[in-house]
């Protein structure tokens, strides 16, 4: 079961015609899919659409009733390949992943499906991981849409608009034989709101009504001469058809305004933030009545030249608000107007930052700039400016008041995380053998690059930790150490990493972190997830898999055993037989484990049964205040408090209530020979009578001994 259960929320997926649905964006998208006659859905987890995968998993019953097949694909490539179902057959399907990283992985299949064209409607839902909270390189999905000719939807971040985009997206796809991409930004995926539901509708064909007839049509195969013909079709048929469909169905909106000599063109996804900026300037109200005409692009690819010309024709200046770079839309609009007799000045990245997320304040500044440049008739710029200045001054005052930046609080390893001991071990090994080049991968384990570990020199992609060492290793004196998570391993690391290294006879050490789940994205099951926990009928082990592709030197080490890990690592680094040496660092994700353990503990307490918990503590008078323990272990539960010794300066370490008693900090104190201040306390609830008697006797004896303490200690 995943980290977050949506079992309650999925009930709202059953809402029928006219009922009001309330929930988060991704849940609304799921409902919209069920209303749209889809036959299959697939995807690969990753913020911000992880919850969509969880919702679909938890909605198994509803899916079954509607005959919707859902696949937790092994990678985005596998998910995208599912779309082949819609090439020949009238099956509607949807896939989802995190973009642009997922789209990179899926690009091969996407390009092929887009070339062949689709008969059943196809919707690709991408969670655009851009701006604040993003965990990937900052790029745009727009380029993928343009290069493969896939229509790109970027609806307003309101539930009715999103649901509408899903539904019309399928129609657009079928009308133009072209896949459609629906782009949802991070905050949009999580926005809570409401819309009016429709009934769920099953696909025309599905598991309950399977297709009977196989179709063969060479024109759909991406090989010459079909591939040439397909390119022609894109231009001669699909494109014009798309323009017609989009304008006839008014997918983009042209909103009127009082100041008709200027206008703003904005991506749908940015519209809400723009409205807030206009509201601040007193140019719009809370429900979106704007004094400036706005053309909202729900479809950002392709643009509709006719609509753009109509919007611009009587305006002296127009501002294009387009997030990210390059500014494809702005360029395209300029090209559209070029050579016509429309001489509207087009502003965009000249007044707004070329790169980075368009937050509300940035838009506010940009729009203010624009108004000064455009000087529309009827706006009193001077009063607007002075009103703005006052607020701006207040904001600056606040921002500079402290005089120093507050410390960052980046996400990091959780309390009791099984990955932390591995990195402590690596730190200890490096203390003995010097610094190594360590190739990172994608996953929670990448937190190792932050303090206090600072381990991992680079990361170039999911599952690519080992592959990314193969160019450097032969040119480096010391062996390279590569890290890979179990998620990345099954995504592609087994082939692109392990098989590749064995095949090419590469040397080096690979550490595969087996924590039992795709943990960073919320504990989705992966092939090696314990069967009892994944609820599936199979469990594939990492060790068998790597041996299966020819790896010989394979050791599995429990991650909390720092001593064994240090020895094994040292052995792997220093031992002579060349080739790939694999260490599987095994330890279940503590978040997942604690959910189980805590529930069991509570249940035991409720029925009065024996239940014990373990946690560690530190004797403040023994602690030296050196805090090497924090630097080596970094468990968030290790924190600081005032030193009880008035003669000492600097705080001492203390273990707070979050401790789950994994014992790692104590083990590290042992392994690294730190101070003897750590102790382990086992607290037993509802002890047996024997335990009670023994404890009583012990306390009595120790109490008597205490009584004989010199001068009342």
């Amino acid at each position, binding site marked *: 079961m995943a980290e977050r259960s949506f079992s309650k929320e999925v009930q709202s997926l059953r809402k029928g015609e006219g009922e009001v649905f309330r929930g988060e964006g991704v849940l609304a998208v799921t409902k919209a899919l069920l209303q749209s006659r889809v036959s299959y859905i697939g995807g690969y987890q990753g913020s911000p659409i992880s919850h969509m995968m969880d919702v679909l998993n938890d909605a198994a019953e509803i899916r079954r009733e509607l005959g919707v097949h859902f696949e937790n694909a092994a990678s985005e490539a596998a998910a995208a390949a599912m779309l082949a179902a819609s090439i020949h057959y009238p099956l509607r399907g949807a896939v989802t992943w995190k973009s642009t990283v997922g789209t990179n992985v899926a690009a091969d299949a996407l390009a092929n499906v887009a070339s062949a064209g689709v008969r059943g409607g196809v919707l690709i839902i991408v969670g655009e991981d851009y701006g604040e909270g993003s965990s990937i390189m900052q790029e745009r999905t727009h380029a993928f849409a343009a290069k493969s000719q896939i229509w790109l939807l970027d609806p307003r971040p309101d539930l009715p608009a999103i649901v509408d985009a899903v539904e019309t997206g399928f129609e657009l796809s079928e009308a133009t034989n072209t896949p459609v991409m629906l782009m949802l930004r991070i905050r949009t995926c999580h926005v809570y709101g409401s819309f009016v539901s429709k009934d769920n509708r099953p696909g025309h064909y599905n598991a309950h009504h399977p297709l009977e007839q196989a179709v063969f049509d060479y024109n759909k195969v991406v090989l010459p001469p079909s591939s040439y013909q397909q390119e022609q079709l894109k231009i001669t048929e699909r494109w014009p058809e798309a323009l017609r469909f989009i304008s006839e169905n008014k997918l983009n909106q042209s909103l009127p305004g009082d100041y008709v000599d200027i206008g703003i063109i904005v991506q749908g996804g940015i519209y809400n933030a723009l409205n807030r900026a206009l509201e601040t300037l007193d140019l719009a109200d809370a429900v979106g009545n704007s004094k400036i005409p706005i053309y909202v692009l729900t479809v950002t690819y392709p643009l509709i030249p006719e609509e753009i010309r109509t919007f611009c024709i009587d305006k002296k200046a127009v501002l294009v608000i387009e997030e990210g770079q390059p500014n494809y839309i702005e360029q395209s609009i300029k090209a559209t107007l070029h050579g016509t007799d429309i001489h509207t000045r087009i502003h965009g990245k000249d007044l707004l930052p070329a790169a980075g997320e368009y937050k509300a304040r940035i838009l506010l500044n940009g729009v203010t700039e624009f108004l000064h440049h455009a000087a529309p008739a009827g706006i009193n710029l001077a009063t607007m400016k002075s009103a703005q200045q006052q607020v701006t001054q207040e904001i600056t005052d606040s921002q500079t008041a402290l005089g120093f930046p*507050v*410390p960052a609080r980046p996400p990091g390893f959780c309390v009791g995380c099984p990955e932390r001991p591995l990195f402590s071990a690596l730190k200890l090994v490096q203390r003995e053998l010097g610094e190594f080049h360590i190739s990172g991968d994608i996953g929670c384990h990448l937190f190792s690059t932050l303090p206090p570990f600072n381990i991992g020199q680079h990361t170039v992609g999911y599952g690519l930790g080992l592959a990314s060492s193969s160019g450097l290793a032969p040119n480096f004196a010391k062996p390279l150490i590569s890290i890979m998570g179990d998620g990345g391993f099954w995504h592609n690391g087994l082939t692109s990493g392990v098989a590749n290294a064995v095949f090419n006879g590469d040397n080096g050490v690979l550490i595969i972190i087996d924590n039992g789940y795709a943990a960073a994205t919320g504990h989705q099951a992966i092939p090696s997830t314990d069967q009892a926990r994944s609820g599936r009928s199979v469990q594939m082990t990492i060790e068998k898999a790597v041996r299966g592709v020819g790896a010989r030197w394979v050791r599995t080490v429990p991650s909390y055993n720092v001593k064994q890990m240090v020895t094994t690592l040292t052995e792997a680094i220093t031992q002579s037989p060349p080739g790939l040496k694999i260490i599987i660092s095994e330890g279940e994700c503590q978040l997942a484990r604690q959910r189980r353990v805590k529930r069991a503990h509570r249940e035991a307490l409720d029925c009065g049964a024996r239940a014990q918990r373990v946690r560690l503590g530190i004797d403040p008078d023994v602690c030296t205040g050196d805090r090497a323990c924090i630097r080596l272990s970094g468990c968030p539960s290790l924190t600081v408090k005032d030193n009880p010794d008035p003669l000492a300066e600097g705080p001492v370490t203390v273990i707070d209530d979050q401790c789950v008693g994994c014992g790692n900090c104590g083990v590290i*104190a042992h392994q690294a020979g730190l101070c*003897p201040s750590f102790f382990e306390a086992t607290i037993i609830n509802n002890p047996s009578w024997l335990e009670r008697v023994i404890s009583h006797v012990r306390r009595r004896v120790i109490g008597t001994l205490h009584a004989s303490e010199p001068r009342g200690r």
Partner: protein
Amino acid sequence: MNHRNTRPIKIVIGAMGGEGGGLLTQWMADLCESQNFEVRYTYVPGVAQRTGATTYYLEAWPAFSDHNTNQSMVCALMPCPGDVDLLLSTEAVEAGRALQAGFITRSRTTVISSSHRAYAVAEKIAPGDARIDPEFLLKTVATHCQRLVQFDMAACAAAAGSIINAVLFGAVAGAGVLPFSRQAFIATIQRSSTVAAPNLAGFDLGYAMASDESKDLPGAITAAKSTRSKPTAQALAAMEDMFPPDIHDLLRMTMERLVDYQDDTYAKLYLDRLQTVLEVDRANGGKSRDYTLTRETGRWLARLMTYDDIIRVADLKTRRQRFIRLREEVSAFEHQVVHVADYLKPGLEEFVSILSPKLAKWVRSFSARTGFGVNGFPIKIKTSTVSGFLALRIIAGLRSRRTRSSRYLKEQATIEDWLAQLLGAARRDYGLALEVAACAGLIKGYGQTHLHSAGRFRAILEKIPKADADTLRRLREAAQEPRL
């Protein structure tokens, strides 16, 4: 109602991952909806809501839109600086973060924040004390917001057995910043959870604190008062005779420490040593300098003389106070059985050093020949069992023989050497002498850590005769960098 004149209420919640900021947001949403407001909220969870700082944003608007018109509120999805009405923060630095983001402004924002601190990694690992003072932080916030409500919500939550969000939710109700009744808040908590009782208790506390019904924080768990061995009245009187009044407080503390560590004679030795420093201090204008040299030397000398050895550790680990404190620290109740195991890793040297010099020499050469005990003895000793306790108690009992051990002799030699350097320096340059005093801070820790740091200390001592205050300070600071 006229749409154009109605602003949504804009609320930002600054929380730390894993704290359940999402739950608080849901409560706020449910509350507003139950009072006929339309609600939008969103958040940026980052990497699956692990430990980082997380911001939630909510807008609420009196509901007069319905789904048949296209006109409903347009939520900005992210707070706009200068535009936030209510800022909730579960920790003091998070309020500071919001201030720096511009989400707190004088003309608009009410801030409700817990005043407690959860330290960031940077604060924890920096050498010395890098903790940010929450009082300063919140004072700054106070001068830049419309109104600040702050108190230690973590302590309230602990007292009520609730989550911190319940206290914060109560504070929002108590502060009266939203146009909703107390009952409406309570109903929200009741709707959301089957285990509402503790959260309602937390809510009540938060409400009371914010509405000025009560200004006393629930009694924080006070540490058990220590009953350490005390110096005799006579010894104290002698000290007061010898030293200027300015430093009596300090010396009372240090003497207590020495008596607790060893005995009255040892405390006497301490005072004798310090007296030589006082004399030189006086001779070099110490009076006009508030006897800084005597004071600083007194502080460091006490620490050097109470060096950490296994006798000391065993002593501290077997004290009655420790057993009481420990149960409190792990929040154990009387009816629960608690087992305690201590992680100790004495090195061979630590055992050897408490032996007499002769015996110590023999063991060392044995170890050198056979490799016995070179990696230390990592043990997990069960201190709550009679045998475990006794084992440690026996080691603690070696205290009476400490002054005959080889370690003792070595430490005293180091101290004498340091003092001699210090006195010599004081005659040349008062500032240099202060630097020499501070060098004592280089000696740290147990086992290997101690050996290394003592080595660095001795290396610096050798350089003193030729150094000036500045050079010495630089040397000392360089030697202070942590190795791990």
